[in-house]
């Protein structure tokens, strides 16, 4: 790999475009994928020198962290199960892996290299692994204690532990690359790096401009004007997707994302794009979040500082964290129309009282679905009692209950906000929408109401409520 990289550098001179003090270079075969770098603030010759040094530095990192290279430090460690004097980079990466495994409650693991290998063999032999044996192996790995490695002591691992750090190595290398350029080319004012779709931005490309990144398919993710554009001052974006490297065994397709608790591909994959302040966090979080249910994943993201995420389920529905939309660049940077819906859950007496299942959603005037605003109650069976919601929305969108449903609530007054986006994370531009409210209750009744909403109005609109539905008031916040 090292030699191939050198040959590439010699044989394929860096393609470049220089606009004033901006230099762009693209190279293939870095970390097994495409590498795109743009430097701002220094002239072309200095940029080329910096990029060449950086590529050499990245190659050294690959010699440490790549499990694809049999002679790399990590491959030796996996093979010999013992290493004296581990390098600083490997120590940092392995300890980061352990931290993420701990905090993710086993939704993230770098220690499942043996499981990865068995799946690669299964693809070759086309014989499906035994699910119970894989779960046993996964459990043995989880139960094996993790040690804090350091450079001074020899490190030992058990025979079933095989490290595969691909879940965060790319992010680590991106962060290290930024440090390397800043240390070796202090006059650089802005850096954009893209390795195989994972991006990191540092500094500024010009005094007043932000970095833009298009979030569509991750291979389209770049600094151009496509798809949803997010605008950030600095930080990193990582993506974990569906379908790209999936396993195919005897015609059956399996997600390439393996659940560390199961040793088995996850059943309902979704893609996720993560924004974080640094690339290591973005990369590791993307891996972890792709392994979690969307609802739990969003809850986790909402508790983090400086970390946001956009999810797309297999049924096409998109879901995002509380502040993701703050990153989104609107066409004219105008503020989004927002809406507050105050709703009530009525009080009923009775010894067999059960809390109602409640669904609130928006459509356009032609009954085309815009966005689910609220789902109370997560049981698939009882959600179907809201018949209109189920027939028009729920049954067609498998992911919705898993991703959005919250526990049922006791009687009272509540409020929810709509952020101005539709289910596909596009800004809604219609002036008139229809708000639907449906509620049903075990041992109780079932009711449905709707109201047409004028998004241009300043005065509140209300529904007086009926049966299981209390009074609903809609206020537009321009």
């Amino acid at each position, binding site marked *: 790999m090292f030699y191939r990289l050198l040959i590439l550098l010699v044989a394929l001179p860096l393609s470049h475009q220089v606009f004033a003090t901006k230099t762009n270079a693209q190279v293939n075969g870095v970390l097994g994928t495409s590498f795109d770098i743009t430097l701002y603030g220094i002239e072309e010759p200095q940029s080329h020198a910096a990029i060449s040094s950086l590529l050499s530095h990245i190659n050294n990192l690959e010699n440490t962290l790549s499990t694809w290279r049999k002679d790399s430090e990590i491959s030796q460690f996996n093979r010999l199960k013992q290493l004296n004097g581990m390098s600083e980079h490997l120590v940092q990466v392995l300890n980061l892996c352990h931290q993420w495994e701990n905090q993710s409650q086993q939704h993230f693991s770098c220690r499942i290299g043996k499981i990865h290998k068995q799946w690669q063999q299964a693809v070759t032999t086309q014989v499906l692994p035994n699910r119970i044996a894989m779960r046993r192996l996964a*459990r043995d790995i989880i139960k094996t204690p993790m040690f804090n490695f350091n450079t001074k002591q020899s490190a030992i691992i058990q025979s079933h532990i095989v490290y595969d750090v691909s879940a965060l190595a790319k992010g680590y290398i991106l962060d290290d690359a930024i440090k390397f350029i800043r240390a070796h080319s202090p006059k650089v004012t802005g850096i954009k790096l893209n390795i195989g779709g994972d991006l990191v931005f540092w500094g500024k490309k010009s005094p007043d401009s932000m970095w833009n990144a298009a979030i569509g398919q991750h291979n389209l993710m770049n600094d151009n004007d496509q798809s949803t554009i997010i605008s950030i001052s600095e930080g990193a974006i990582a993506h974990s997707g569906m379908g790209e490297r999936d396993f195919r065994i005897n*015609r059956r397709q399996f997600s390439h994302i393996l659940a560390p608790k199961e040793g088995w591909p996850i*059943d309902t994959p979704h893609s996720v794009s993560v924004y974080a302040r640094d690339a290591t966090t973005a990369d590791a979080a993307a891996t972890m979040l792709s392994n979690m249910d969307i609802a739990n994943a969003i809850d986790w993201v909402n508790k983090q500082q400086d970390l946001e995420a956009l999810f797309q389920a297999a049924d096409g529905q998109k879901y995002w964290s509380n502040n993701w939309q703050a990153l989104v660049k609107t066409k004219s940077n105008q503020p989004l129309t927002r809406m507050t819906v105050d709703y009530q859950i009525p009080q009923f007496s009775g010894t067999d009282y059960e809390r109602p299942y409640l669904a609130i959603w928006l459509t356009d005037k032609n009954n085309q679905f815009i966005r689910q605003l609220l789902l109370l109650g997560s049981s*698939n*069976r009882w959600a179907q009692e809201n018949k209109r919601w189920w027939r028009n929305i729920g*049954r067609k969108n498998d992911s919705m209950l898993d991703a959005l449903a919250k526990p049922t609530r006791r009687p009272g007054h509540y409020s929810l906000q709509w952020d101005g986006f539709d289910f596909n994370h596009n800004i809604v531009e219609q002036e008139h929408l229809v708000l639907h409210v449906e509620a049903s209750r075990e041992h109780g009744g079932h009711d449905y109401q709707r109201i047409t909403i004028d998004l241009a109005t300043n005065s509140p609109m209300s529904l007086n409520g009926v049966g299981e539905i209390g009074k609903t008031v809609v206020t537009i916040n321009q």
Partner: protein
Amino acid sequence: MKKTQLLALSALFTSLFTQAASHHKLVFINQYDANQDWSLSLAEFDKARESRFNITDENNDGFVDESEYVFEYKNRMDNQLTKDRQGQIKQTIIRFNALDKNENARIDLAEYQGSGKRTFTYFDTNKDGVISESDPAPKRRAKKAEKTLTATQQRETQIKKLPRAKRVLSMPTTHSFNGLLTKYDANDDKTITPQEIAIVRQKIWDLADENNDGWISEQEYLYEFEDRMDMQIAKTRKSAVKQTYVRFGILDKDKDGKMTLAEYQASGHRSFNRFDTDNNQIVTLDEAMPKSYSKKKGKKNVKKQNVASNTSY
């Protein structure tokens, strides 16, 4: 709804309940009945439960924690799901042969759509050209006159149902009005026309005919079904595992995250006592069935769930 229809529905639900309860008892006895004599004494039950507890307690600390409990359950469930999957594949081949009327080892579109037309005719009982709620329930085929069975024969007939009772995988069915609506009612108007059935079946046909040669081979038919079945298996597993966490919470009475053998046995005794309707500390196939749980009233009580209800696994 007419009174006679209500009575018929009530009889059907009662029969479904009895069948479900009888299935549960079959599985219940079978999984603890070490000497396989279909008579489960409390001592035998306690011993089997203790043995399972000890196997589940991987680290032998005298407690079963949540992860040990879920791990043991998942493995048993996956063993059963593997068997269920194989059984479904066998059934699919039987269905293929039934569709292949001219027995040329492949189905043509006319054969496939013919099956859809037969479904329509069967359910459109009032012959108004649509399947809707106003259609009276179709008459079931008359059962062959049942022979008078001896007690031993009755028991053998019951035991033969064990493999079916143990199933955790249940595929969506079109043998009911709601099942038909889910599959065929494209415009959500709660009625099904022959055209809607033909359109949906054409889509399935196009999907199944992978090589676009105008025929569906047995392999193609199986592939199409396997894809749907694997999605259903994933849903079943997810729901069942979710329930396992809930069950652990209930078993772990003192909420310390650890289940003791006493807590585990106390829970087992509640199940045992429920089936031991003659209170002689022996559960047999012949004794009376327990009463159904009656917390939920009305139709909601009997709605079939799409998830594994066989949580005793």
